[in-house]
Structure formats: structure tokens, C-alpha cells
């Protein structure tokens, strides 16, 4: 069979067009690998938000070779809004226990920082959710990330196709960032754990309440870009009273009785997903994050403390995320 010049041109054009359309799906959108050889996750038992959390957390942190001496530690809780009786926010007792623990470990300073996603009046959320009093009593500095000074920051990956974001100076200047999520289901992203918690560093003043641009650019994609650009050094996830169902605001409190500590956000989120009864590989940002942001596979995670078993009854989710359930 002979190939005419006409066929050759048509074929070449079709091949070129096909390659340019398909290539973006196959070319990795990251150019670095932050995965450590092995990650460590500790699952701790805690049934109540009580003073005993100080001790539980202190002992839990001793399971990790942490060196925060002389460092600026930034604790990033999940503080979205306040609804009486709902387990929306990371509990202030756990955050204060973390402040105390990192101070004891020799941190130069410990700051709590968050930019609530829906409520513009951060001080109102702080006072209603019990943070304000605790912060004042323990003399802890709080920075409203929705209103902090901003620095133009190029994104290190291109999942969302945003090239850059304006991010808060306080976050970028911190030596050691601790993501402290509430373990919850989320009606737009399936779960909200340590990686999704990073939406809170995106300033409302610049991007609105909620940070709508991240929704339009893709929630899973934006999570990956944020976590690639601003590394999470440690995770303390609040699963003492978690949330299931129509999270992140209108779900139902779900007593889980666990705190999850980890030196790797992907390992932390994969473990939390299992504790919720989900297959972490079915959560896009965990699955893709496990290629370069951290370890998702159990074989690369040293599990200390209590085992991360699937629950007898998995967390309820909205219909669109029923595919997350582990088989």
C-alpha cells in the first residue's frame, strides 16, 4: 500500500492534534518527589476533650523524632464556622494541647493561624467556638490568614492550572507547619483531612468567602497545588468527635475516639480515610498525592500506637461519594 502525500499530511496532522490533546493527561504535573523512604503514623485513643489531652499528645509526639527547637511552629486548625452542637471545627482543647507540647519541645514560637472559609468575622468564630478564651489564657498569638499580608507565590505544580496564588506571609515564613484538621466528610471533596485543610491558608480578602476560585479550578486539583507549594511538616488530626454525612458544616457528629499524628500528610490522610471506612485510593487528592507528596500505601507507612482498622460501620457520605467505601 502506498502512502500519498495527501494521506501523509492528514495523518501527521491527526497524530499531532491527538498528541497535543492527550499529552497533558500523561505528563506528570509535578517535578519533584517529596516522599520519604518510610512515613510514620500514630493512631492515639482519646474519648474526650479533656485536660488529659496534654499528656496523650505529649506521649504521642514522643513517637516521632521531631526537632522543632528554635523554630517558628504554625498550627493550622480547621476553623470554618460555628453551629451549636456540630463537630465542624478542630476542638480548641486539642489545639491548646498542641501549643503546649510544641512549646515544651523548644519551639521558638507557636502561632495558631487560620482563614475561615465562609465566615468573614473571624473573631466571631473564635469567640463562639471557644478559641478566643483559650488563646488569651495561654497567651497564644492568632493570625487571621484571611487578612494577613500577602506574597505572590508561584505554584509548584499545575493541576489547577493556576500559575500562582497570593499567600499569607505568616504561613510562608513559618519553619514548621502543622495541619490540624477535623476528620470529616465533605460534600464537594469526599473527605476533608490534613490536605484539604490547606484551603484555609488561601486568603479570603483576596479570593472571597468562600474561596470560590478554588472550586472553579477544581477542588482536588487545588488541594494538590496548595500542598505541593506549602509543605505540611506534621499532622495532628482531630477524630475524637468526627463528622459524617453532609459535611463540612451540616453533617452529624460521629464519635471516633482517635487522634491521628503523622510526619507525612498523605500517610495521615490515607490512614484517616481507612478509619472512616474509605479506600484512600478512591480519594483523588490522596491517590495522586501519593505519587509525589507522601506515602499512601500501607507498605510504606510505619504504623505506631493503635492499629488503623476499618470501622464496623463506615462514615456516611452524600450519594456522590458512595464510591469511596472500601470493599
Amino acid at each position: 500500500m502506498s502512502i500519498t502525500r495527501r494521506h501523509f499530511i492528514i495523518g501527521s496532522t491527526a497524530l499531532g492534534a491527538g498528541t497535543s490533546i492527550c499529552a497533558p493527561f500523561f505528563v506528570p504535573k509535578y517535578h519533584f518527589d517529596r516522599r520519604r523512604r518510610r512515613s510514620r503514623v500514630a493512631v492515639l485513643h482519646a474519648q474526650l476533650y479533656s485536660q488529659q489531652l496534654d499528656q496523650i499528645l505529649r506521649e504521642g509526639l514522643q513517637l516521632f523524632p521531631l526537632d522543632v527547637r528554635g523554630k517558628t511552629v504554625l498550627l493550622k486548625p480547621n476553623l470554618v464556622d460555628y453551629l451549636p452542637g456540630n463537630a465542624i471545627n478542630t476542638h480548641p482543647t486539642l489545639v491548646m494541647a498542641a501549643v503546649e507540647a510544641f512549646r515544651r519541645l523548644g519551639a521558638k514560637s507557636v502561632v495558631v493561624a487560620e482563614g475561615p472559609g465562609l465566615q468573614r468575622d473571624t473573631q466571631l468564630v473564635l469567640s463562639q467556638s471557644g478559641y478566643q478564651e483559650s488563646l488569651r489564657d495561654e497567651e497564644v498569638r492568632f493570625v487571621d490568614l484571611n487578612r494577613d499580608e500577602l506574597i505572590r507565590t508561584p505554584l509548584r505544580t499545575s493541576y489547577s492550572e493556576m500559575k500562582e496564588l497570593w499567600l499569607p506571609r505568616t504561613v510562608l515564613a513559618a519553619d514548621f507547619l502543622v495541619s490540624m484538621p477535623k476528620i470529616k466528610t465533605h460534600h464537594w471533596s469526599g473527605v476533608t483531612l490534613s490536605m484539604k485543610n490547606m484551603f484555609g491558608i488561601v486568603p479570603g480578602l483576596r479570593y472571597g468567602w468562600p474561596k470560590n476560585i478554588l472550586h472553579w479550578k477544581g477542588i482536588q486539583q487545588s488541594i494538590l497545588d496548595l500542598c505541593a507549594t506549602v509543605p505540611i511538616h506534621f499532622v495532628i488530626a482531630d477524630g475524637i468527635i468526627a463528622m459524617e454525612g453532609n459535611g463540612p458544616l451540616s453533617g452529624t457528629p460521629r464519635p471516633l475516639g482517635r487522634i491521628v499524628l503523622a510526619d507525612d500528610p498523605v500517610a495521615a490522610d490515607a490512614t484517616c480515610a481507612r478509619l472512616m471506612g474509605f479506600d484512600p485510593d478512591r480519594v483523588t487528592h490522596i491517590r495522586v498525592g501519593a505519587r509525589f507528596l507522601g506515602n499512601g500505601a500501607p507498605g510504606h507507612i510505619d504504623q505506631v500506637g493503635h492499629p488503623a482498622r476499618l470501622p464496623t460501620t463506615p462514615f456516611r457520605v452524600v450519594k456522590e461519594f458512595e464510591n469511596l467505601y472500601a470493599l
Partner: protein
Amino acid sequence: MVLSELSVELVRRRLPCGGWPVLLSSAQPALEPTCYSLLALGTQATDVRERAVVFLLRAQNPNGSWPVFAGDDHDGSWLTSLVAVALSDHVSAIPARLKGLHWLLSSAGRESNWIWKWKFRTTDRHVRFDPDKFGWPWFPNTVSWVVPTAFAILALNQLHCFCGGFELAPSRLERGVEMLIDRACPGGGWNAGNGVVYGTAVRPHPDDTAIALLALHDRPQHPIVQVALNYLEFTAPTLAAPWSLAWAILALAAHRRPITLLRRALLDVTDLSYVEDTSTLALVCLALDHEQALVNLGVMP
């Protein structure tokens, strides 16, 4: 602490460029605190206000919009409305203000486009709203939200005539008002954007409710406005945060509801001069001088 002392503190926080930073610890001049401060200073500190006006004029984007802070990108933001309100009494700013309002008319929530309208009507129905009733976004290329829509209504309502390129303003204003009414929470008041998400009624926010009520000051008898006023009147005495309390005072005063106890509560907030957020401090000044503030916001004649 009395109003005059707070005004002195406000002036003290000004940056050499003429603008104000958001947080006390910041040196980055931002538009929101500058606008509230300019409005709060009223007729005081003439030189300070003049420098603030110059700062705002210099910060305007080539397309007529205003950014969030000096040095920001040039796409434009919801602050265009607030700047237009803040500059409404300044003759030297008339051309810039009109250019800003023209930009505002060209800006709309993404659901105003037929493709997105279709999407929200057919495949994406988890958030209950009517996409035909659209307003303004926080930033270009996103959907409409309550606060930016309310500020755009306040700004466009200050136009003296709907001529000279503003012929579309009445219909945009009407749509904006319809959007606010459509997106009220079922129990009264407003949240950030919608009243029902995934079949669940969301809880109103005092500040979002107050700002929407200011925009709807000329429709006091509308049932949605009445229910929102009742919610705000009930909630305001429980508020310990100066930002929400100040907005509540302004909105309730605009609708002629009693505010004496709320003003007292605002004055009782522990040492206001230590409030780190300058926008909040300026807003407190506005609430304590609510009659003048409502004139400056274009809510009262």
C-alpha cells in the same frame, strides 16, 4: 473608649502612602480598610482624607476596577464597589469613580452566562438558587455572592442618573435585588451565598445579613427583609465580636430599629484600640456615628 479616641487611633495606623493596612502588624496598604477609614473619618482630618483619596486613585486598575491591595493583579475585585462608595463625596475622583462603575456594570456572576445557567438548572442542583437572578462575584470568573452584590447595589444606587453608558444599571440593580431575595436563608437572614445546600438550610451570618439589609434599605416592607431584620434584632445582642456588632448597628439603624443597647455593648467591647484588624476599627467608628455613616454609605439622604 469614645469615638474621638478611636478616630485618633485610626489616623495613627495610616501608612505613609496614604492608605491603611488590614492588620496592625502589616505594612501592605489595602483598599478595604482604607475605604472604611475614609468613610469613618467623615469631615475630620482633611489632609489625611485627601491623601487617602490620592492613594485610592493611584491604586485604580487600567480597566477601571480596583484591586484588593496596592501591588495586586489588575483583574479587578468587589472592592470596586466599596471604593466607588467611599469616593462618592470627592469631586476630584468623579472620572475615576465613573470608570469604576462602568467596570462594575460589565462584571457579573458566572451564572449569568447561558452555559452555566444551563448547568445549574440541569446537572448541578445541590445548591438551591435561581441562576436567572444573578449579581456580582468577589472576583471575575466566579459566581455571585451576597456581600459583593450588596456593595454593588449600594454603589450603583448612588448614581444620579442612569445615562451616559449607565442605561443597563436599573436592570442590573433589579437583578441584584432579586438575587439577594432569592438566596436568603429559609429561617431569615443571609449566609455567604445561598440558603440551602444539599437539601439543608444554612445558618445566616450577622454581618452578611446586615450588609444585605443595607442594600435593601429601600424595600423595608418586603417579607424577606422583615424576617431578616427580626433575625438580626434577635441575634445582635448576643454578639461579642465588634465587626458583626458594628454591621448590625448600621443595618438596624437604617431600618429604624432600636440600637441604643447595641451601641452601649459595642463601647463595652474590651479596649477597641487593640483590635488588630483596621477594617473592624473603622467600622466601629462608623457604627458609633451611625447617622453620618448611613449618609456616607448612601443609605440615608
